[in-house]
């Protein structure tokens, strides 16, 4: 991709701007689609229909209508809120989710930045979301938002650890942090995917990483920060209009980012499950997006099935269940590799 762009205009600014904008070109239509999909999935699981009118067929244009509505809304900032922080918070949350896309390989031909510390970079940068959430909760000058923000900070920081540890098992097997490299190493069809190697350790690590990623994205059963029935809307209670839309966009972008990382590391990324059949740069993008969307669907499925955990139970799960098991997986994989 980089070569292609350089052949058009040989300017760093042009090339890197376009490459940075390309994931945005994916995120925006994806978010529109994902919000609609969430509403439809939740509706059908609850024996009802969901959006049906806007746009004709099953209300596919519902999200577009919602975005148009949100753009027109009055931007209400509470009188006693900290205005600068209140303004910056949604942008920081979005930046945190968006920056992770830089190192995710969409296909063999496209990766935003093929740095050698890809995974490390992703984990580091997606922690920016915590800062944004804390800013949102604090600056709203609302005790309920503050609660949401505090819980969220504790939650995201705690779940970084089992998430990282679980991902480390794959890094141990692959020997590199470069996501494109990790993807290349999973050639040869279904059985060569990392999740099936050194069974069951990497499989358990996959489950741990998936559960931790649910907590990273504040989805049920870990949606305490925005617990609808307790805190009205948690840290984004006092936001209206486009800023609220930005929080939503960031949440869905984050959902796809973590799904993509799981897919890349454990399930072959843009590799086809059928060895050489249906593979190639464009097919790669298709496989990658399908796998990502499948995990997004599973996240939605879980949201509409499970109640939410209380904050201390959340902490318990992180520190006393996920982290020890992640350590056990690392130990198991390491031992297996050595013997």
């Amino acid at each position, binding site marked *: 991709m980089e070569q292609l762009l350089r052949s058009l205009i040989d300017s760093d600014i042009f090339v890197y701007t376009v490459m940075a904008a390309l994931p945005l070109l994916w995120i925006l239509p994806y978010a529109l689609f994902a919000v609609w999909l969430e509403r439809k999935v939740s509706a*059908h699981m609850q024996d009802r229909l969901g959006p049906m009118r806007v746009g004709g067929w099953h209300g596919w244009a519902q999200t577009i209508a919602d975005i148009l509505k949100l753009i027109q809304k009055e931007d209400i900032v509470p009188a006693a809120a900290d205005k600068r922080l209140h303004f910056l918070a949604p942008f920081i949350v979005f930046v945190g989710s968006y920056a992770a896309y830089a190192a995710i390989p969409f296909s063999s031909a496209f990766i935003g930045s093929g740095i050698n510390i890809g995974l490390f970079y992703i984990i580091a940068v997606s922690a920016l979301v915590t800062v944004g959430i804390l800013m949102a909760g604090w600056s709203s000058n609302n005790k309920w938002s503050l609660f949401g923000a505090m819980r969220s900070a504790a939650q995201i920081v705690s779940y970084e650890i089992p998430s990282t540890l679980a991902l480390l098992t794959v890094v141990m097997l692959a020997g590199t942090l470069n996501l494109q490299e990790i993807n290349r190493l999973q050639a040869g069809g279904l059985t060569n995917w990392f999740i099936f190697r050194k069974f069951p350790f990497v499989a358990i690590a996959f489950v741990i990483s998936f559960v931790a990623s649910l907590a990273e994205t504040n989805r049920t059963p870990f949606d305490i920060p925005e617990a609808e029935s307790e805190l009205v809307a948690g840290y984004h209670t006092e936001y209206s209009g486009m800023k609220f839309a930005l929080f939503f966009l960031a949440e869905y972008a984050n959902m796809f980012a973590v799904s993509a990382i799981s897919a890349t590391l454990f399930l072959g990324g843009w590799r086809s499950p059928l060895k050489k059949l249906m593979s190639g740069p464009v097919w790669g993008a298709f496989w990658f997006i399908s796998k990502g969307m499948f995990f997004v669907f599973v996240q939605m*499925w879980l949201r509409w*099935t499970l109640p939410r955990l209380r904050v201390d139970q959340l902490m318990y799960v992180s520190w006393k269940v996920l982290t020890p098991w992640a350590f056990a997986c690392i130990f198991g994989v390491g031992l297996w590799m050595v013997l």
Partner: protein
Amino acid sequence: MLKYFTDIFRSVWSVLIGMKVTFRHLFTPAVTIQYPDVKLKLPERARNRLYVNMDDCIGCFQCDMACPVDCFKIETVKGLPTEDLGMTSTGQKKRLWVPVFDIDIAKCCYCGLCVYPCPTECIKMTDVYEFSETNRHHLIYNYATMTPAEAAEVRRRAAEHEKEQAAKKAAAATAVKKTPPGSPPVPPAPGSSAPPAPGAPTPPTEPPRA
């Protein structure tokens, strides 16, 4: 220690069972309908907006007395004996004009208590439930079929009749005073010989004869 492992196992297992339930429901047909394109037909006993058939209303105030929230405003005017107000469909002769029959449908609590006591069954609850208004005052329903001119005319005639009756009564009273005691009783004033018919407005009664 064992509890730790059983807890984890039970959690994973119950989560999977829950996921199975919701996944199955993903493929069951929806139970909702696309209102307002599709509307359910309400059962025949449905209690929604009130309807009053004024042709049958005899102005008995039973519905007003039965209403727990006082949402009726009814005004009746006595019909003169010479006027023919017609019959109800149940065969009763009407004797009262009803120029004002208002129901504040916003106050109405849709209990249906007004329907039972009506002797002619002219007040009914229909199945109409889509009658929202933007102006609250439009929710005061005027059921009376008389025009303001007719109502004024009827009131005027009734008031005149009242005055006539009061004058006759005064004349009869003075006539009684003029008759010396012990003489044969004066025949009662015309227009009041027959005993009052049931349901009819009672004419002014004579004071008892000595």
